[in-house]
C-alpha cells in the first residue's frame, strides 16, 4: 500500500491495540484456546439443553434400572433408569449458572467496593479496607454451611452467599488499580470536566482496569463451582428435584462399586470444566500481562 490515508492509519492503530495483541498472544497458547473452546461448547450445550437433551429430565424407566453406556443411552442410566447424559446436561446448567451468577455478584460488590475505596482514599479507604482484612480472616466455608442450615437450602441464597464470599480479592485488586490510575491525566481531565465520581469510576476507571478484572473473574468461576460442588456433595447445596454436578457426583459415589459410570461421567464433566477455566485463566494472565492476583 503506497498511499497512506487517514483511515489506513486508524486501521493500523487498531491492528496493534492492546486487546488485539492480547488475543494474538492468547491464540498461541494451545491449552488456553482448548479451554476456551471447551467452555464455549459447554455453555452452548447448557443453554440449548431443554431442546437438545436426548430424554426428558424427569423421564424414568424403572424397568431397565442402571445400565452401562449403550447406543440408546450414551452415558448409561441411573438406578431409576434415567438417562445420565440428560442428567449431566441439566446438572451442568445449574453448576455453570452458579459459577457465573455467583461470580457476577462477587464482581459487582468487589469492583464497587474497591473502586470507591481507591478513589475516595483517606479515612474511608482505611475503614473499608480494614473491613476487608477482617472479613478475609473469617472462616467462610463454615459460614456458608451455617447459612445454608439456618435459611434452608435455597438456590438464590446459594448464589448470594457464595458471591458474598468471593468479592474480597476483587476489591483489593480493584483498589490498587484505581489508586494507580487516578493519578493519570485522563482522570484529572474527567474531574475538571465536572463529571460525577460515579461516572468517573464506571466510565473511566473500570474499563482501564479490565485486564486484571477479566483474569481474576476467569479464576474465580472455578473456585465458585468447586464451592457449589462441595456443598451439594454434603447435601447442603442444590436440592432435588433439581440437580448439579456436585449432587450427581455424590449419588455416583454411593453406588460406584456397582455402577462406576455414574461417578465417572459427572466427575469428568466437572474436571473438564475446571481444567478449561484454569487453563484459560492462566493463559489470559500471560496474554494480558497481569501479575498474579494471588501472590
Amino acid at each position: 500500500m503506497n498511499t497512506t490515508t487517514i483511515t489506513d492509519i486508524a486501521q493500523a492503530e487498531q491492528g496493534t491495540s492492546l486487546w488485539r495483541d492480547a488475543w494474538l498472544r492468547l491464540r498461541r497458547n494451545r491449552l488456553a484456546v482448548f479451554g476456551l473452546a471447551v467452555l464455549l461448547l459447554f455453555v452452548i450445550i447448557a443453554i440449548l439443553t431443554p431442546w437438545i437433551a436426548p430424554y426428558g429430565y424427569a423421564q424414568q424407566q424403572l424397568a431397565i434400572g442402571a445400565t452401562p453406556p449403550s447406543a440408546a443411552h450414551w452415558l448409561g442410566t441411573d438406578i431409576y433408569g434415567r438417562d445420565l447424559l440428560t442428567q449431566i446436561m441439566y446438572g451442568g446448567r445449574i453448576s455453570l449458572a452458579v459459577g457465573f451468577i455467583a461470580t457476577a455478584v462477587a464482581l459487582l460488590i468487589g469492583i464497587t467496593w474497591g473502586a470507591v475505596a481507591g478513589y475516595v482514599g483517606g479515612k474511608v479507604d482505611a475503614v473499608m479496607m480494614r473491613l476487608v482484612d477482617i472479613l478475609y480472616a473469617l472462616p467462610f466455608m463454615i459460614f456458608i454451611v451455617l447459612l445454608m442450615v439456618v435459611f434452608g437450602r435455597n438456590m438464590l441464597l446459594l448464589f448470594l452467599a457464595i458471591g458474598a464470599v468471593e468479592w474480597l480479592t476483587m476489591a483489593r485488586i480493584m483498589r490498587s488499580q484505581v489508586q494507580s490510575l487516578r493519578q493519570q491525566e485522563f482522570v484529572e481531565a474527567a474531574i475538571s470536566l465536572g463529571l460525577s465520581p460515579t461516572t468517573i469510576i464506571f466510565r473511566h476507571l473500570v474499563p482501564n482496569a479490565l485486564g486484571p478484572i477479566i483474569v481474576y473473574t476467569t479464576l474465580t468461576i472455578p473456585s465458585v463451582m468447586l464451592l457449589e460442588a462441595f456443598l451439594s456433595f454434603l447435601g447442603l447445596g442444590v436440592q432435588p428435584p433439581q440437580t448439579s454436578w456436585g449432587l450427581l457426583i455424590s449419588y455416583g459415589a454411593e453406588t460406584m462399586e456397582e455402577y462406576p459410570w455414574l461417578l465417572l461421567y459427572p466427575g469428568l464433566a466437572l474436571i473438564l470444566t475446571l481444567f478449561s477455566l484454569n487453563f484459560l485463566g492462566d493463559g489470559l494472565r500471560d496474554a494480558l500481562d497481569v501479575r498474579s492476583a494471588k501472590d
Partner: protein
Amino acid sequence: MWRFIGFRVLQSIPVLLVVITVTFFLVRIAPGGPFSSEKAVIPEVKAALEAKYRLNLPMFEQYTAYLGDLAQGDLGPSFKYPGRTVNELIAAGFPVTAELGFYALLVAISIGGIAGVIAALRPNTAQDYIPMSVAMIGICVPSLLMGPILILVFGIYLEWLPVSGWGDMPGDKILPAITLGSTYAAYIARLSRAGMLEVMSQDYIRTARAKGLPEWRVVTGHALRGGMIPVVAFLGPAFAGLLSGSFVVETIFQIPGLGRFYVQAAFNRDYTMILGATVFLATLIVVFNLLSDILAAWMNPRLRSQYGDR
C-alpha cells in the same frame, strides 16, 4: 518483631468477636426452633427445657450469658444429644480431625514442596513440566472426586487398602490423608516453584555459587529459606481449607471426626453444637492464620516492616 506480633494479635480479637456474634445471632434467628420438630411437649416440660437452654431470656441477655460461658470455655449443652455437652462432642471428634489434618498437611508439604523445588531447579524442561502438570490435576480434581476415585482404585479394584474407618484397620488412614492433602500439595508445589525461581536468580545465590558451594548446599542451605516463604504464608489459609475439607473427607471415609459431627449437626439442626463448633473452628483458624503470618514474617523481615506500616 514483638510489635508485629502484638499488632497481629490485636487484629485477631475483633475477628473473633465478629465470628461469635454473627454465628450466635444467625443461629438464634433460624426458623424452626430446636424443639419444634418434636411432638407436642407438656408446657411445664417445655418451660423447663427453655429455662435450661436459656431460651426464655431476651435475646441480648442470651448473648451476654453465652459470651460469659464462652470466656470460661463452656460451649453449653447439646440440643440433640441429651446429657452431652458440646465440649464433650468436640473433645471426642477433634483429635481425629486434627490427626487427619496433620497427616494431610504432611502429605501436602512433603510431596508439594519436593515437587516444586525439583521443578524450579530446571525450569521449562520435562523436570518442570511433569510435576507441574500433575499439580494442575491435583488442583482440578476436588477431594469429593479424589476420595471416591482412590477408594475405587486402591480399595475396591486393587484391594490394597481399607476404604473406610479410622484406626480400625492398618492402613485405613492413608487414603483419607492423601485425599485431603492432594489439593494442597498441588498449591504448595506451585507456590514453592514460584518462590524458588524468584530466589534462585538473586545475588546472594550467585555469591554462594561463586564461593564454590556444591549445588545441593546452595539449594538446601541458602535458597530454601527464602523460597519457602510463600509456602509458609499459605499454611494459614491451607489450614482453614483442611478443616473445611475434612467435612467432605470424613463423610466419604466415614471417619468419626469433628467435620462429620458438624455436618450431622447441620442436618439435625443441633443449634448449640453448630454454634459451639463454629466458634471453636473459627478460633482455631484465626490462631493458625496468626501463627502462619508470624512464621512468614520471621523468615522475611521485609514483610514484617510492610505489615507494621499498614
